[in-house]
């Protein structure tokens, strides 16, 4: 047993040595996680990310009420510069501008708005959205709704207090509680705001490590097989397990280096806070790797050459990446996708890692995740190792 590990270390060391000799590979090891983090972190548009979106504004008939709305849009915009506001005369113009892609949406205050208000009805402000861009649309709609709500709220408060004053009631109820009797306050385990990076960083870390194993292992073994050096290892008086362990070891070390790069970037560049133990984070990375190694080896054994290996892996990698909750919470997925995500080890690795990084969970909170990962990894290894041995002496 000791000899198996010793030989595995020689092979792993040899692989790392080869790896460090290639400058481009070294540089990419650092750059790749950096890009990955920026990319995954910016995939979701958030309100804070919205800047200078071109929108159209139509006020068909200016009135004190419409001025209130326009003014509060302008005030908000001066502060946060969400929009680049263009004025138009009619809804039709907004329509054609959206079609041409010149604006991403619009706000229309029609003649009817004033008429309805005068006749004691609710005034209707129209939000025009661009259906081709649902994400921007939902952000715009949110912001517009908020503005109109606020204006409408303050007008209501003013009206209520005028009414109560007119009716001569002193010390009457607070107008706020009449207009909006219920309000909400958000509380969570973490103080302060959660950003998307906080959600995406654990997933990205795990993904980079696992992607490294899944693509690196088959590539490394297929490459040795095609270049003939694998024969040198197979002819040597060492166990096949030494080759598997050694190769995996080198890939793990590389993956952990990349995960560390992501961790550092997350903390220092993207403001992610690690609420749990760092040691536990690395422990979970190892468990995650263990869970997937068998699958990587099995795929290597099934693929006759490097190209086939790469194709096999990417076929499996992509669904795995998108269904395991790296980018989108699993709970938001349709039922069949959720069912698939439940059988992916990556789902559990990411879930546990996120609990530690974001929620500060301890090892006791993760028992079920860890057991599932260990079982999955062990079963896959039992399938993969005989396949691999068979492939090698073909």
């Amino acid at each position, binding site marked *: 047993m000791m000899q198996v590990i010793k030989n595995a270390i*020689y092979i792993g060391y040899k692989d790392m040595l080869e790896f460090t*000799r290639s400058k481009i590979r070294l540089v990419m090891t650092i750059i790749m996680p950096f890009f990955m983090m920026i990319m995954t972190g910016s995939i979701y548009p958030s309100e804070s990310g919205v800047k200078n979106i071109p929108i159209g504004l139509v006020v068909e008939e200016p009135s004190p009420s419409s001025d209130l709305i326009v003014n509060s849009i302008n005030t908000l915009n001066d502060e946060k510069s969400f929009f680049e506001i263009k004025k138009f005369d009619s809804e039709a113009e907004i329509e054609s501008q959206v079609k041409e892609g010149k604006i991403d949406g619009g706000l229309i205050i029609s003649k009817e708005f004033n008429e309805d208000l005068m006749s004691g009805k609710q005034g209707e402000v129209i939000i025009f959205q661009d259906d081709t861009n649902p994400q921007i649309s939902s952000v715009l709609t949110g912001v517009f709704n908020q503005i109109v709500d606020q204006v409408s709220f303050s007008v209501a408060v003013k009206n209520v207090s005028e009414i109560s004053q007119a009716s001569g009631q002193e010390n009457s109820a607070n107008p706020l509680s009449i207009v909006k009797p219920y309000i909400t306050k958000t509380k969570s385990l973490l103080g302060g705001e959660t950003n998307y990076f906080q959600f995406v960083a654990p997933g990205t870390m795990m993904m980079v490590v696992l992607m490294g194993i899944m693509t690196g292992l088959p590539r490394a073994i297929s490459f040795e097989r095609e270049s003939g*050096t694998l*024969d*040198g290892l*197979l*002819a040597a*008086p060492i166990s096949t397990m030494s080759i598997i362990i050694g190769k995996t070891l080198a890939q793990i070390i590389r993956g952990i280096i990349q995960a560390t790069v992501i961790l550092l970037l997350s903390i220092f560049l993207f403001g992610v806070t690690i609420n749990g133990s760092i040691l536990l984070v690395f422990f979970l990375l190892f468990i995650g790797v263990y869970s997937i190694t068998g699958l990587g080896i099995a795929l290597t054994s099934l693929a006759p050459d490097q190209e086939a290996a790469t194709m096999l892996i990417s076929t499996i990698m992509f669904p795995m990446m998108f269904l395991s909750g790296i980018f989108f919470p699993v709970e938001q997925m349709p039922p069949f996708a959720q069912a698939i995500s439940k059988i992916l080890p990556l789902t559990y690795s990411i879930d546990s890692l996120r609990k530690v990084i974001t929620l500060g969970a301890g090892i006791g909170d993760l028992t079920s995740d860890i057991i599932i990962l260990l079982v999955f990894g062990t079963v896959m290894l039992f399938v993969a190792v005989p396949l691999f041995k068979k492939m090698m*002496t073909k």
Partner: protein
Amino acid sequence: MSKSIISVKNLTKKFGDLAAVDNISFEVQKGEIFGFLGPNGAGKSTTLRMLTTLTAPTSGSFTINGLNPKKDVDQLKKMVGLVAEKLIMYDYLSARENLLFFGKLYKVPQDILEERTDKLLKMIGMWEWRDHKIGTYSTGMKQRINVIRALVTDPDIIFMDEPTLGLDPQSTRQVREFILELNKKGKTIILTTHIMQEAERLSDRVGIIDHGKIIALDTPENLKNSLADKRGTGVEFKVSEVPACMLDKLAKLPKVSVKQLGDNRISISYGNGTEVNKLIDAIQDCNVGILRMHTSEPTLEDVFIDLTGREFRDKATEKEQKMPAAGPGHGFRKISSRIR
């Protein structure tokens, strides 16, 4: 001969329905150079792969120094060195790193390993290059490292699969001399080749293999002699003239046949036991002067043709031999000159 070190019985390897190696049995004697000669695809490499435990046989068995690959695989592997056709070395590592890495896998103690590595590097004239990456070496340099890579573990038996393939004449000669030198030091060497002269020059015994079967196995000398016995030896004369008298006299000699090749050239083939003096006497009797003569002995190629009824170099072999010389290198030169 001395005692046998490798003993192969009914070894067979099938890929699907195709038998790459078909029920072969042979023995290799300790201390000899055993050559496997055959065209590409004859089953030489597959046999070597089975003997070095890289491929599992479909059926049959073998032992190396009495060791069974099923039971004593690690001991067996330690006795054996492999010089594979595809070079076994890592381009990003230096020659020294490559040698030390493989030595460690064979549990060679560090001090002995380093000493041996340095000695080998000096021996093949690669000492100055020891710390350069393999990727920067020429083909000939790489092959020299490939050979000594098999020696850092000090094996008793060395398998070499086409050790001179793709090398220039100078490197080829170096490698061949090195093989002979190793043999002198007592190493048993089993090599495969599709080059007749190589098998003939290096091997103590040659096994001619075709379609997965050993069709002849003996010393190169015996193989050629047996063909000479069967076919007779040939001799060609350039003479001053070819009178009928001479042709007549020659034809009357026992076990001799004559053919006129040109105005003053004849070819004679004579069976065993015929003395060349008799031929010369017959020519001189007719007052014909001999300007030049040469005997043509059968080559291993003739032996192969005799055994299989085919030319040795099939189309596939031809192609492969021409490729490296005129193929990619040529194209590259063309492109680079165009760029310039």
